[in-house]
């Protein structure tokens, strides 16, 4: 049985999971900052 396949699947998925978490973290922060700006713009219009 080729052990490289099991190592690749393990390390590959770990890298993917960490990468996905970091991307989601960045998206979450951008969204939060956007909400703040939108609310401020709405208040300025009022």
């Amino acid at each position, binding site marked *: *049985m080729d*052990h*490289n396949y*099991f*190592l690749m*699947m*393990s*390390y590959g*998925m*770990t890298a993917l*999971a*960490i990468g996905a*978490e*970091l991307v*989601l*973290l960045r998206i*979450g*922060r951008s969204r*939060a*900052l956007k*909400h*703040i*700006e939108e*609310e*401020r713009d709405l208040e300025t219009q009022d």
Partner: protein
Amino acid sequence: MNFYYFSSPSTFYRLAGKLAPWFFALALVSGIAGMYSGFVVAPTDAQQGEVYRVIFIHVPAAWMSMFTYFVMACYGAVSLTFNTRLAAMMARALAPTGAMFTFVALWTGAFWGRPTWGAYWVWDARLTSELVLLFLYIGFMALANSFEDARRGDRAAALLALIGLVNLPIIYFSVQWWNTLHQGSSVSFKGTSMHVAMLWAMLLMMFSFWMYAIGVALVRCRTIILERERRTQWVRSLT
């Protein structure tokens, strides 16, 4: 030192912003060192061959999955007892990372189990209780986000986290309490049966995951603070 000063979201936001890059840098450096030790320095296992190298992420991820849950439940307890906003935010910030580590522990365990046991999955006590831990994390996140009022979500999720604590000793002692396919612990306070190079690689990866988890939790907590405090003057002055 007045610790109440650091429980203020505005103080914590700035402090976390300064600390997070250092934790990520430590995670990266120790992760590279751990990978080098694990793949170059550590010898091939006499019985399992090369596939044992999954241990360098499987074991640290499994440890982190339990430790993160414990810390999350502690923050939940603090938020319930003292009604502190920041503790509830930290509990929320830790949950996705804990879930990620639990998933990684289960996934890498499956890809270690197949060549060594002949199966990706068995309904073994250790594996099943770790799967329950993943469901607890998912339940925590779902419950925390299912309320219109975030503070009510915090309280309900904290309660679930505290109830779920009972699963941690079950995971840890499952290999002793039941006749499991999963092996017992190779590392304990009494010593280790591992080669020193293997142990160092595992400890370096453990440190790397730990630093990563702290860094991510700090960044995520900053985002939660931004969302919850968005109507305050200090947050508006940031953008």
